[in-house]
Structure formats: C-alpha cells, structure tokens
C-alpha cells in the first residue's frame, strides 16, 4: 500500500540505480530535506540545538566517516576519538592563525589535515588485519591525545591547555562563539551533514566503494581481480578520516566551543562512534544516521522522561539510563545483527507487500 511500485517504471540506467528507486521513498527524502532546511530552523531554540540537533548531526558525520572505513572497507579502527581531536585542533590552529579566512575553509582544511594523519596511521593496515589493526589504531588514539596534551603549541600556550573557539562569521552571521544563534549553528552543521552524506553515498556506490567492498569481502580475491590494496585501503583511511576530521572540527568549534583533549576526545569517543556504526548497520549510510540518533537521542529522552517526567532522583535515572541503553543495544543486536539499517530494510520489504503478503 504505502510502497506502491506499480507504474513506477525505470527507463534508463541512471533512473534505475538512483539512491531512492521507489517513488515514495524519494518523496519522503525530499520532504525531509525541505523540513530540515526550511521548517526546523524557524522553530528550534537553544535547548533543541545544543542538546539534540548539533550532537546528532555531528556524530552522524563521524559515523559516516567510520562506516566507510569499518563498514565498507572492513578495516577496524579504534582511533576515531584521536582523529576527531586532529580535526578540532587543526581547526583551532587555523582559526587563530588565519582569522581572516572563512570558517568554512578552516573546517574543510581541518578535514584534509585529518585525512593526511589518517593515511599515516593507516599504513600498518597494509601488513596487519582485523583485531591486530584495531590495536594499531588504538595506538593512534592514545598517541594523538597525548600529543595534544603534551605540546603547548597546539593549544597556543594557554595556561590551562583548553582550546576555545573565537567568534567567526559566515555572511556576517556568527557561526562559532557565544553569540551564535541556534538556527545558524544548526544550518551550518546541516549543510556539512548533507554534503558528507551525498559524497559518501556516491563514493560508496562508485568504483572507489566497490574496491573497498572487494577488499572487505576478501582481500586476496580483490587483489587477483586487479584491486590495488595499497590504494584502496589508504584511500578508505583518507576519506574516512576526512569526514571524522570535519566532525571533530564542528564538534569543537560549533557545538562545544571549548574542549580539553583528554575529556572530549578520549577512548570513550572512539567506542561511542564505533557502537553507532555497529548498531546503525555496517556498510550503510542510513545506518550511520540511525546509530547516531539511537546513541545521542535515547539518553536525552530517557533523562527527560525519568527526571523531568517522573521526577526520579538524578543519580538513579542516570544509572538506569546506562542499564536501559545497554539492554537495548543487546536486544537490537540479537534481533538483528546487521543493525538498525537492516531492520529498516526488512520493514520496507514487508511494507512493499502489505497488506497482501502472498
């Protein structure tokens, strides 16, 4: 009923291989984009932006980045927190060294710098695989956090080691700093999210993505059919780190405004993003969004229900939150090991046949 495909004919390859081949999906997607760009900015306030939308959007970019590496190319990485820190510190150094350059370029260049660092730490992936690679990237995590804590040049010799984002504007509208309007911060991040998702989607269904997936499925076979593992793996590290760097830069500059590397980009962050990717669904762009939504929104929702709604003590609620989120992760993964994206895919299949499944 909802997914009627009758009469929805494809007459060209382009039409047949588009991202949303079903018309209903396509319209839902357009409607979502219009709502996100044209409706939400007018109705959100500080609470919605700072507690819900910004973390969701920024973690979505990080999850997309990590999904390219883990989900599409099969290279397990635990260095996400470290790479986000590279993005954040690169952005800080650029913002303070070149105050006249627009913040958009700073963020994109931060992504580029992170990509370079990612390639460097991706080099071991040519020799080691699986869990061993995870441990190697863990080294990146610890090394990078140590570096940013240790070398005062990265935090401009401030006495506390904190970095804080100065006010920067785009078209005379402040994007970072304390005078940022909620809609400005939201729209700024939204543009980056949409662009990242489009780029990621088109990379993963093109030649680059097919090479990554070939490496993921069986690297020796991929090499035999002519995929260069050096190029494929390192490009996956580069692209993944680029997105993670952008998310780190946004996380620091737009969302928090001031960070301390050990607290904001510790090992917990690496695990959080990895969980998002696993729960959302490996090898799926939609899964990155679903996973980020699950792990960002659920704790806030639970807190509001338990403390704001039921008036329970905050410590009890906070402990229960961990229990509930943990239990739900297990339930979801038992019910569907391929994540929320697969659940959604199955639901869609059923909806296409509903209400006459035979």
């Amino acid at each position: 009923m909802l997914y009627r495909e009758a009469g929805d004919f494809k007459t060209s390859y382009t039409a047949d291989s588009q991202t949303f081949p079903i018309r209903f999906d396509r319209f839902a997607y357009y409607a979502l984009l219009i709502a996100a760009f044209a409706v939400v900015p007018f109705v959100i306030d500080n609470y919605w932006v700072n507690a819900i939308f910004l973390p969701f959007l920024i973690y979505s970019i990080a999850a997309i980045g990590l999904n390219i590496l883990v989900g599409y190319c099969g290279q397990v990485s635990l260095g996400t927190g470290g790479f986000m820190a590279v993005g954040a510190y690169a952005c800080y150094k650029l913002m303070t060294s070149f105050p006249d350059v627009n913040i958009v370029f700073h963020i994109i260049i931060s992504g580029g710098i992170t990509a370079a660092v990612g390639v460097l730490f991706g080099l071991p992936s040519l020799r080691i695989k699986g869990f061993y690679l995870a441990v190697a990237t863990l080294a990146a995590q610890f090394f990078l956090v140590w570096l940013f804590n240790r070398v005062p040049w990265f935090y401009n010799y401030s006495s506390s080691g904190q970095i804080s984002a100065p006010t920067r504007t785009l078209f005379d509208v402040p994007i970072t700093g304390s005078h940022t309007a909620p809609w400005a911060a939201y729209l700024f991040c939204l543009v980056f999210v949409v662009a990242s998702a489009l780029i990621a989607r088109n990379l993963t269904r093109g030649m680059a993505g097919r090479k990554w997936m070939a490496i993921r499925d069986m690297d020796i076979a991929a090499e035999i059919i002519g995929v260069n593992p050096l190029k494929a793996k390192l490009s996956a590290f580069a692209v993944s780190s680029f997105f993670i760097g952008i998310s780190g830069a946004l996380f620091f500059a737009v969302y928090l405004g001031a960070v301390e590397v050990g607290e904001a980009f510790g090992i917990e962050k690496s695990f959080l993003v990895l969980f998002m990717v696993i729960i959302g669904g490996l090898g799926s762009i939609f899964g990155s969004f679903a996973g980020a939504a699950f792990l960002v929104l659920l704790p806030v929702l639970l807190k509001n229900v338990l403390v704001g709604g039921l008036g329970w003590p905050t410590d009890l609620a906070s402990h229960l939150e961990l229990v509930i989120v943990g239990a739900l992760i297990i339930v979801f993964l038992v019910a569907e090991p391929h994540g929320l994206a697969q659940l959604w895919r199955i639901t869609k299949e059923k909806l296409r046949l509903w209400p006459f499944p035979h």
Partner: protein
Amino acid sequence: MNHKLLTAVTATALVAGPALADLTIVDLSYRTGPYGANGVPFSDGYQDYFTLLNERDGGIGGEPIDLRECETGYNTEKGVECYESTRGDGDGALIYQPLSTGITYQLIPKASSDGIPMHTMGYGRTSAKNGAVFEWIFNYPANYWDGASHAITHIMEENGGDISGRKIALVYHNSAYGKEPIRTLEKLAEKHDFELMLQPVDHPGQEQKSQWLQIRRERPDNVIMYGWGVMNQVAIQEAVNIRYPMDQLIGIWWSGSENDVKSAGAAADGYKALTFHNLGSDYPIYDDLQEYVVDRGEAAGSGDQLGTVLYNRGMYAAMLAAEAVKTAQEMHDVSNINAEQMRDGMENLEMTEEKMADLGLPNFGPEFSVSCENHGGAGFGAVSQWDADAGEFELITDYFQSDQEIISELIEADSQQYAEENGIEPRC
C-alpha cells in the same frame, strides 16, 4: 518547555511543571561516573543548605527556593545539555555552580552572553578573578593559583623561610584543572629559587605507578598534588607504598576529603591538604540541619555525608549564594530577583565574621569582599592535616594570604589575553 514536550510525547507522566516565580537555583551535580564519590557530598551539602532555608525560613527574604538538580557525570556534553535545559528564559536559573573546570570553560562564554552569573568556588578559570573582563563569572574566595602559593608559603614556614635549592614536585591531573597552577609555580620557583618537577597523571588517574616511581627515584623534598576523584586515593596509596613522608605531601583543597585518605588506612596519617573554609560539624547550624532537614527526611542523597569536608564545602557554596541573594534583594528592594540582580548581589557581597556567626557558622571561612575589579576575594586559605585515628581533617594553621604580587600579575596577563581574543572591553 521542550523537554517537557518530549516527555508528553512518551505519555508516561502528566505531572505539572515546577512552580515559577521562585528563586531558581540549579545544582549541576555528578553522583555517577569516575568523580561521583566526590560529587555526592558536595551536592548533598549544597542542596541541604537550601532545603534548610526553605524549611526553616520559608526561603530567602520570604521567597521560596526552587532547587533543581541535573546530573552531568563530569561530562562536558551532558553539562551543556543540563545548562540548556535548566537555564530558562528571563525568570530562569539565578546561578550556576558546575563543580568542574571543564564544564566551566564551556559555560563561561555561554553564561556571559546569556547573562547568568556563575560561581566557580576554588576551581574554574583562575583569571576570572578579574571582574573587569569576566563580568558574569566569580571565583571567590580563593582560586587554583592562590592554592599553589599557599602550599609554597606553608613549605617555607616549615623550613624557616628558606626553600632555595629544594626540589618540589607537582603531581597533577593532566587536564585544564591540573595544568592551571604550573605557571604560578614556575614564577614562585624563580622567586624562591626552588626546583620544580612536573608529574602529569592522565584521566581518570587509576594508573600512577610510573609517576611515583619517578618520585621515588628523584626524591623531591615536597610533593604538591592537584587531583580529583579516584586519582587522589591512588596517589596517596602510591605515596604510602614508596614510604613518602606524609607530612611533606600537600594536596589542593580538591585532594583533601575523607574519601581520598581513608582507603590508605593508618598510613595516610599526617597527610596535608589546603582548604578555604573550616571543617567538622561543630557548628550551631548543624543542630538546625538535624532538626529541619535530616529529621524531616528531606536530606539530599542518602543523608550520610553531614560533616565531611566536601559536604561543608557544598554548604559553604550554598551559603555564599544565599548571602548574594540577600545582598541583591536589599540592593534592588525586590524579593524575587532575576539573574542580573543576582550578579549585582554577588559583586557587592561582603562576608564578615558577624554575618557568619549570625548564620550559625562562626569562623567558618575567611572574611572577604567582592568588587567590580575583584571577583575572586582576597585569596586566603589554610592548611589542614589528616588525623587517621580521629578520622578527620584538622586545621593546623590560620588563614593566610597568597602571594598577591605574583598572582595578580599573572591574572592581569591571562585575562587581557582572553579579552583580546574575544573582543571584550574591560568594564571598570
């Protein structure tokens, strides 16, 4: 309110929202996470004092206090969420006391542009003492740099006023908090000609073998510690393990609670810690607390923290906030003050011995006054020592002032840098 909307969507509760037009005080607490053991007593003390005012006096100046708690877990992202969900518009929160240097750094620009005062008592950004630049931030009665100077002054007094050639180690939490005193100590090292040795400990601080091995090898004459949470316990245990003399180990006020020393047992006897308020439960106010709060079953948490160091500190913070409310009420001649009036109250706060005695807290803290230029008080502190047999910290010195000459110079430089970076025109 938006989070209410979310709640309504889930249709789990249909409770009416809290009454408006009260004095809203927000307690950003952390009862969970790696620093929970220290967050609980502070939050209990903070809340119990306001509960006492509500139960005994019907609030402050006849205006009831609406106390809201929000759990941050010492996590900056949750701290931001808490701030946004509690600050309200116009008639919202009067004052924030986040008890976390990380969250403080986050909230300084936000609170300043939203016009909500923040009191970071003995923590946070030290240069916020310069009220000309940090209009909305207060850190009286003492700050991290005062603490560093207190420790050095105490060591000097112990050694007849001359510490040249001594080796002093700083064991610190490798974060904004722990790094704060380094510059002050470097300046003091120049002035008094001692050698400074730095030993960072990474969050959360459960692993300190290598740092204390280093200390065992280099044998510094004194160790100053800037730790928090589990880091304190581990450090004191490690110091015991290498048989470091306890009376040469001085912790900042955040490293001097019962939680920190009890796990090391009798061997921790003699450990010193700084403080900027008095200790113990031998005050008239404790009778009222018992009568109006504990006996009525209104105590925050499990009610077993009364009289501990951090409980007293939370109570002290609440007392200073309540006195600022009173000052503001007198200044503006309204009982239901707003955040801007609260700021005026804090800026004109004057703590005298008579005031504290009237409140049932005689000789509880140093006397100080706040002004437009000086948001940090006079920088008085004292040294306390752990008595393992009695199971309590005891003051072993009077309140003494920190080296204002060095500190005010550093504060001037750091706050000017902040003003330049953020385009702030100094006020007074």
